């Protein structure tokens, strides 16, 4: 029963997911498979300018369909991938690329996370190195240990005495009443 339900559920999820991923409806004819693969790859690498969190392959917007057509035309003209990327960047700016190119403007973007991780590692190392030293100081040597034992014993004796004292006091009180 449970497995059946799971099956139904997973089928549902699968259908739903495939619906979401369905590409917009346009038909491009390619002479060869290589161009087709290049078209698919490039339309995933280029950002739709209007709907900025989607690539060209995903987007249904008017601009994206125009850009897909342009991409197709450029491919049919026999332009190389890097040429096409350059043309797109020339018109829409660096921002049209999902993976921005490494340049002085994007150094922070590319190497920032790496630098942060390095800083984190250094901080962790510093903290770890400091800890053993403090631990050593905290541990008691045998002399201190002995003294501690003594203190504890004294304390125990003291509390016993106090307790006895309290008890006698309490019984005295009772007798008075």
């Amino acid at each position, binding site marked *: 029963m449970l497995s059946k339900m799971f099956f139904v559920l997973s089928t549902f999820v699968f259908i739903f997911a495939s619906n979401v991923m369905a590409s917009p409806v346009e038909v491009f004819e390619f002479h060869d498979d290589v161009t087709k693969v290049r078209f698919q790859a490039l339309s995933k690498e280029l950002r739709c*300018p*209007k709907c*900025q969190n989607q690539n060209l392959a995903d987007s249904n*917007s*008017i*601009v994206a*369909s*125009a*850009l897909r*057509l*342009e991409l197709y*035309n450029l491919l049919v003209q026999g332009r190389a991938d890097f040429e096409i990327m350059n043309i797109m*960047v*020339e*018109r*829409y*700016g*660096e*921002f049209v690329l999902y993976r921005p190119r490494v340049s002085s403007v994007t150094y922070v973007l590319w190497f920032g996370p790496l630098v942060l991780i390095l800083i984190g590692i250094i901080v962790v190392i510093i903290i770890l190195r400091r800890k053993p030293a403090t631990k050593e100081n905290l541990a008691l040597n045998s002399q201190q240990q002995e003294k501690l034992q003594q203190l504890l014993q004294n304390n125990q004796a003291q509390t016993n005495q106090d307790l006895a004292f309290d008890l006698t006091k309490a019984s005295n009180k009772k007798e008075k009443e």
Partner: protein
Amino acid sequence: MNKIIRFLPLILVIALGAVLYRGLSLDPSYTESALVGKAMPDFALSTVNNANKIVTKADLTGDIVLLNVWGTWCPTCKYEHPYLVELAKNPQVKLYGVNYIDERLAAQQWLTNYQDPYQFSIFDEEGLLGVKLGVFGAPETFVIDHHGIIRKRFAGAIDTRVWRKEFAPLIKQLIIEKKQEI
């Protein structure tokens, strides 16, 4: 030294907050056009009102040109339209349209219904000129100087306030440039 380190996380969090707060007020659809300072791209397309008339870049150059990208599918264009009609009376600029990814009949209907402020509207059915111009959507307006160089791209509707703030100073400057050359 120790005290400073203790406050370091607080300072960092405040700095991060400031950066993110600034991010809230930024418009993500605003991007500097990559085309500003470059020549208007070549094209050869018909006009909305005349399928047999082919216009090219040469038809645009010589004046200070406003090139307005519009479409009947775009609600903001409708909002903008009355101001464009107003703008068409301005003798300092010439207003041309780019009818972007649209149907000819619907576009013609639009121009008869809401008045036609354009010298002519280029009929860019497949968006090929739009893609060359780096158009994101409509409405978008380009300012092209008398040499055919794109000087500004503005995304969004133009109204009186926008015109005064975004366009008027540039147009003034272009007029001065043009006069100096003559």
